[in-house]
């Protein structure tokens, strides 16, 4: 069930340079969102027509609180970053499929996040940890860290400039710490996802990747946000899966990157 909901801003905090953590009172969406899903956030300026798709960092169903962590990427996200307690924001959600945590039952899991792909992996790691799963978080940053301290599990870090953890990318960190897993859940920039996809296929590790693409409707009608699938899919018939609907989470082997 998707909801259009007027959310109330509870807090908006800058947790890194240009990176904001927004806590919203959004009862309907918070009570039905699962890790890896996203919401459409609508601008209050009518000249900005299209919603911004932002992943759910955490959803607290009990208290009806949704946490979004995003980077300022343009005018829309800049507007959201200026929210103050008590402001209202229009949302639609929860959207997309999210990570299917049941596939990780009893298995060793890597939760891998790169840059602004890290926020959805926090909620995912917390849900897995709450189920008593063996989870290792692998987080990749350019330089400045954010959210890393909040992961409730073993966390290894890679930074491009070597200022923290392994110098290099998330796969370098995995190799350096000699880690192994049976299942991977990942979100981050395309080059990172491409490398993780190859890594998982080489090692025959079950791997799910959360994708990003420019969206308009966010609900599967406009066909803006497609990604190439390996097989002919039921909806498009032309190997174009909708990131907003069939995704954003895909099995690494079902898409081309």
């Amino acid at each position, binding site marked *: 069930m998707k909801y259009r909901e007027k959310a109330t801003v509870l807090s908006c905090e800058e947790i890194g340079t240009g990176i904001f953590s927004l806590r919203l009172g959004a009862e309907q969406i918070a009570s039905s969102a699962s890790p890896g899903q996203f919401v459409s956030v609508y601008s209050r300026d009518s000249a900005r*027509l*299209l*919603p911004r798709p932002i992943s759910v960092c955490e959803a607290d169903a009990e208290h009806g609180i949704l946490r979004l962590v995003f980077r300022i990427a343009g005018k829309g996200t800049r507007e959201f970053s200026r929210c103050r307690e008590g402001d209202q924001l229009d949302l639609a959600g929860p959207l997309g499929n999210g990570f299917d945590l049941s596939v990780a039952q009893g298995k060793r899991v890597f939760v891998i996040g790169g840059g602004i792909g890290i926020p959805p992996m926090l909620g995912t790691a917390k849900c897995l940890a709450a189920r008593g799963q063996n989870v290792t978080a692998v987080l990749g940053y350019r330089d400045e860290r954010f959210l890393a301290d909040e992961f409730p599990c073993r966390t290894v870090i890679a930074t491009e400039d070597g200022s923290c953890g392994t110098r290099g990318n998330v796969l370098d960190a995995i190799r350096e710490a000699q880690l192994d897993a049976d299942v991977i859940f990942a979100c981050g920039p395309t080059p990172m996802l491409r490398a993780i996809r190859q890594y998982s296929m080489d090692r025959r590790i079950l791997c799910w990747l959360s994708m990003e693409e420019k969206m308009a409707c*966010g*609900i599967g009608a406009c*066909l*803006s946000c*497609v990604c190439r699938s390996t097989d002919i899919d039921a909806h498009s018939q*032309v190997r174009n899966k909708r990131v907003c609907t069939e995704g954003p989470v895909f099995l690494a082997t079902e898409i081309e990157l």
Partner: protein
Amino acid sequence: MTHNMSVDICGVKLKNPVMTASGTFGSGAEFSEFFDLNRLGAVVTKGVASVPWAGNPVPRICETPSGMLNAIGLQNPGFEVFAHRDLKFLSETLLPDADPAGSGLEDIAYADAGNAAEAGANAAAGNPANGGIGTKVVVNVCGHSEEEYIDCVEKLAQEPRADLLEINISCPNVREGGIAFGTDPKGVERITAAIRKAARQPVIMKLSPNVTSIAEIARAAEAGGADAVSLINTLTGMKIDVERRTFALANRTGGLSGPAIHPVAVRMVYECAHAVRIPVIGMGGIQTAEDALEMILAGACAVSVGTASFHDQTAVLSVIDGIADYLQRHRVPDIRDLVGCL
């Protein structure tokens, strides 16, 4: 007070003059999670071709001030899947006309009842409150060649749920598939005549604004036997990402839609309404009832709401309710009294 909201497009009765715009609404399934499609005058489906089309590479869209550019490239699953999935969904979802001779009277007080069960009960009982008119289906058709258009139109002749056909001869994003057919008056007349001959349903030709004189194109469609024209399709545009020094869209150019194009659309609807006798359906940047009424006053018999649905899933309902409210406020007994009165 009871106002008439219903209009007649080429012999097909619409319960109200508001439709969705092709390409912005899929075939309605996605939006049916947000409201009851039975409130619409008509659902206009995303363009379908006789075979599946892959569309353009991504990025396919970008935002512009008060608008957006798209270059989806008419991706569609082809006629077979469209008929078995999309038309089936619409037949199961949309209630038929309760009374084929539908009185066309819509009680304004009923207008906010978005409850499918209630609407179903009323329709079954032939309740005159909603005029007994069911929501209609307009199937938008695209093709790479005259033969492809005709193939699709002939297949649609067998589909009882397709009430009207809208022929896209104006997509700016595929080279053969649209605009190639829509910019030359002689070509428009010829393809209209060929399609008209093959079609069972009334034919609406959807026109491109990317021409010197859209009125001339409308006259050509009329001469070819079109039952109606709809306009405008998107205006060709381009956006450049200066930070990355690339085109914002993989296709380089795209079609501009949204409130930014509304004044252009109103002008073109006005010109076409004065150029032809067949009905003109107006679209282009309609967000509110006021925007829709501008089109109607300029000569549109019906309107389509497109890009606004991306900002607000229920925008089309606000337009319907706003028109009903306008009729009441201005004591206009019949929406048809407003068509082209400027």
